[in-house]
């Protein structure tokens, strides 16, 4: 049957410079680079006529169409408002005699959550989670859960600390089964609830992201947990929350969210926000208030944390040589 074959057609990787003509809209897309792979397809940064946009090319036309439709409906009721990437086209592109379904959307710039925390420091984790939760709550109010929340589906603006969700392939109406998830962030995998889409499902993933930013679970541990029962994974997570995290207050809050002690995400968010404010007041003397921090001061922090490289060592050696030479000359002079 044609359909079963079509699902099996693997989409080739397109090289930079390849031009993919659209079939229905009259646009063509010039590949700039591969951005990443999601469950529904591969994302590229492309030139659409003269604009830089992102396209997602998949092998399953229905999945791409559905992702587009869900995003379109949400945009219609929310506006773009920085929550959903701006949508351009749902189209098919042609290459080498094959037709691949794709959707074109806003290309979002930013850094990964890990990079963001690396630049700004761990004290920013509560703020990042607060901002993220606020966005998720907006989706929940419209009857959807994001579901596949994970580090790879999130970018932060390095200057404003605004988070952007980038892959809406997992977006699911609340009450239905979660379709796309990643074990590490999945409540059911950890033996801590069902795999039904609801606001708590997203809250769990959000708390786990916080945990990962504090102290990531090692790949070896994850590998080992894969062959264990959910009850064992649950116990592992409990032990970890008690023993590994050193940041007392944040630990308590994350632990509460992971064990379902908040009635709603907003409650989790308020406690995180309170933590952030306290933290800021304590540190006001030496940090000048993180909220007002500009990109310039980020640079200062970054330099302060930078590791020594070859140039630094070179300079040190040069100074040492200079001092020794001058010393020797002086010594000769005094003879």
């Amino acid at each position, binding site marked *: 049957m044609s359909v079963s074959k079509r699902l099996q057609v693997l989409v080739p990787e397109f090289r930079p410079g390849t031009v993919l003509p659209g079939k229905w809209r009259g646009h063509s897309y010039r590949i700039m680079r591969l951005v990443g792979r999601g469950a529904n397809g591969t994302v590229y940064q492309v030139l659409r006529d003269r604009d830089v946009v992102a396209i997602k090319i998949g092998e399953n036309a229905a999945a791409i169409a559905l992702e587009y439709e869900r995003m379109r409906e949400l945009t219609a009721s929310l506006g773009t408002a920085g929550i959903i990437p701006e949508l351009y086209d749902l189209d098919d592109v042609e290459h080498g005699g094959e037709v691949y379904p794709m959707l074109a959307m806003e290309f979002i710039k930013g850094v990964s959550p890990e990079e963001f925390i690396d630049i700004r420091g761990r004290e920013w984790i509560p703020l990042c989670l607060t901002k993220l939760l606020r966005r998720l709550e907006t989706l929940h109010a419209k009857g959807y859960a994001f579901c596949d929340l994970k580090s790879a589906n999130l970018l932060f603006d390095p200057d404003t600390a605004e988070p952007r969700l980038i892959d809406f392939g997992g977006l699911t109406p609340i009450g239905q089964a979660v*379709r796309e998830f990643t074990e590490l962030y999945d409540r059911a995998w950890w033996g801590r609830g069902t795999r039904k889409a609801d606001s708590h499902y997203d809250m769990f993933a959000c708390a786990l992201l916080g945990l990962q930013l504090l102290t990531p679970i090692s790949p070896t541990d994850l590998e080992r947990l894969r062959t264990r029962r959910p009850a064992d994974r649950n116990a592992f997570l409990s032990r970890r929350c008690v023993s590994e995290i050193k940041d007392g207050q944040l630990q308590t809050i994350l632990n509460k969210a992971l064990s379902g002690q908040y009635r709603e995400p907003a409650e989790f968010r308020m406690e995180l926000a309170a933590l952030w404010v306290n933290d800021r007041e304590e540190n006001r003397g030496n940090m000048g208030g993180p909220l007002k921090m500009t990109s310039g001061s980020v640079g200062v922090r970054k330099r302060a944390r930078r590791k020594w490289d070859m140039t630094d060592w070179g300079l040190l050696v040069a100074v040492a040589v200079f001092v020794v030479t001058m010393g020797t000359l002086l010594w000769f002079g005094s003879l």
Partner: protein
Amino acid sequence: MWDGVTLQQLLLITDGCSNAGTDPVYVAQTGRSKGVTTSVIGILDDGALGEQGRREAENIAEAGGGMCRIIRIADLSRTMQMVTQQTMQLTLQQVVNKELRNLVGQEANALPPETRTKVAKFVETVTEEADVQIGLVVDVSASMTTKMTSVREAVRDLELGLAARTGSHRLIVITYPGLHGEDAVVHRLEGAQVADAIGAMRAAGNTPTGPALETAIRALLESRDHRLATREDRADDGGEGLMKHYVG
């Protein structure tokens, strides 16, 4: 016609090639004509899959109207979810496509994108609400021994995913070869315990994939007949039973 749709599929998990009994490709074909879709997951890690096994896996899936994925054991859980989900969609999409061909002379993928989204949304809703019966056919021959804990947890995980759906589900585990020389064993465990059917089995001997698939198809059809019988007893769904129960 879309209320109470029952989808039946087999998912074969193997790391080798069949070497005894009926040709599994033929069995998959037969199953398909009875409305049972067959998909295959081939596992790469230190198994005997090879080029031959890979080709057989693809042929079984092709004949069975399902999907084929060749993966590493670490990806098993994710792949099982994906394959069952997409096979359901695929089966429904085929029915919809048949209708579309009759109505407008085109399949969904050839429709303009805006129309396609409507079809996709419809298929998605039915996928969530359909009743589904899945037979997991698990190769437990010697080379699979080290992978059994992973398989067991992947099955448990699949059950969690199915339990979250609106529609009902039934998961049957069929392991092969049997411990006492039989071709395959049907395990009668239900719900969260279904994964425990996959224990520390040390099966030796042949890899009778074809006969195992036959056993699995029979087990699925029995439970369908059972369902039909109970439905008829209740006599609550008029005369359009055929379409409902033989989708695909």
